[in-house]
């Protein structure tokens, strides 16, 4: 369902007349999130997220005088902690994610902008544990506030406070008979650079 939308956006961004108006961006972000999984074997077990980091590339073009529509693709990595009631916390498996979102952004006030996005997040296969077989593409919904500061011809620096939501589930969990998915809320702070041909 998302592929045609992304393809059309990419084609639109690549077309010559619009190319001059395209804003490109690159961003590094770090963040944290809510529990990935609750389990029970004799006692309650929770798989908690540690800090994650992500690198995101984006391209957007104007759809109204001050509004932009764009895509962002990101690669993230994070760790987990296993909390077991009565036992304590221990290191858990690590994970990598791939995200692709379509976002709509516009001004709020002065240099502050908003971005609302929808897309997909996929947990990539990893060497061990719950992430071993990766996960299905999950719907990723996000909202962000962005402060943009021009610093050169066509260039800007920006800071972004981003919230997103997805439902966590992996193929390993499915194989083991887990049911339903876990709501996961994440908050991240990003720093990036944007470029629009002057």
């Amino acid at each position, binding site marked *: 369902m998302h592929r045609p939308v992304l393809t059309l956006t990419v084609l639109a961004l690549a077309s010559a007349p619009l190319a001059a108006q395209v804003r490109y961006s690159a961003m590094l972000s770090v963040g944290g999130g809510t529990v990935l999984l609750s389990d029970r074997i004799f006692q309650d*077990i929770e798989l908690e997220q540690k800090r994650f980091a992500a690198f995101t590339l984006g391209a957007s073009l104007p759809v109204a005088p001050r509004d932009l529509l764009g895509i962002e693709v990101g690669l993230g990595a994070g760790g987990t902690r296993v909390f077991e009631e009565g036992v304590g916390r221990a290191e858990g498996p690590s994970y990598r994610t791939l995200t692709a979102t379509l976002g709509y952004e516009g001004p709020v006030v002065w240099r502050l902008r908003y971005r609302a996005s929808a897309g997909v997040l996929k947990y990539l296969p990893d060497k061990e544990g719950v992430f071993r077989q990766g996960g299905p593409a999950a719907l990723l919904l996000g909202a962000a506030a962005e402060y943009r500061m021009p610093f050169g011809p066509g260039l800007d620096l920006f800071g972004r406070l981003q919230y997103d939501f997805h439902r966590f589930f992996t193929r390993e969990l499915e194989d083991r008979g887990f049911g339903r998915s876990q709501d996961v809320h994440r908050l991240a702070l990003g720093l990036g650079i944007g470029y629009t041909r002057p």
Partner: protein
Amino acid sequence: MTRRALALFAGFALAAACADVIAPSRGGSLRYDWRLIVPYDSLGPREDTLSFHWPRSRLPVTFWVENQHGMPSRIRAGIAAWEKVFLYGEWSGTLIADSTRADVIVLTTVPPPQTLPSAGRLQGNPFAALCDGATDVDTAATRFQLALPIRLYVHPVDISIPGTSDCLDRVAAHEVGHALGIFRHSADTLDLMYSFPQVSAPSRRDQATAENAYHFRAEMVPVGP
């Protein structure tokens, strides 16, 4: 613009209705008993049933493997098979070159007669046609300590007999199962921890049993190198 943004947020709010994952059961008939029966004699002969798992601080468990009959690669495959059963990285193992620092020693000989009174032997099928295995665990002076190294024996009856290689693979994975803390045999032939293993990978019941062992309070602690 504002309407589009509002529509997005409305969709967002709908999707964000709370839901938690539902964990499957790993109890009842989905597992078998993994605990070691330890005889002791404080006020007359008695038995105790004790659970063991490797503490996180001792991971990865180190294996020294005698380089005979391709045993290092068989044990490595057995370790990989058991690592897969854990969701949260509860157990891992690795091969090392220094036997004096190993938690587990794997030999390819017939196990010697038992001499230590505190040692227990988990023995396979004594009438094995192709290969056999055994695991010696020593509960040391007090039954609440597990003296390291644990010794595994995996040996062929005659390496030239067809089918021996597969047998060694199965028995190696089975003995690794003992080394991680499953100190009993399953009664089900479809489980890797059946006394004479017919399968080469942990079954669902093996998996649930290992998970249970690693989330059950361990009464024994490893002591040694």
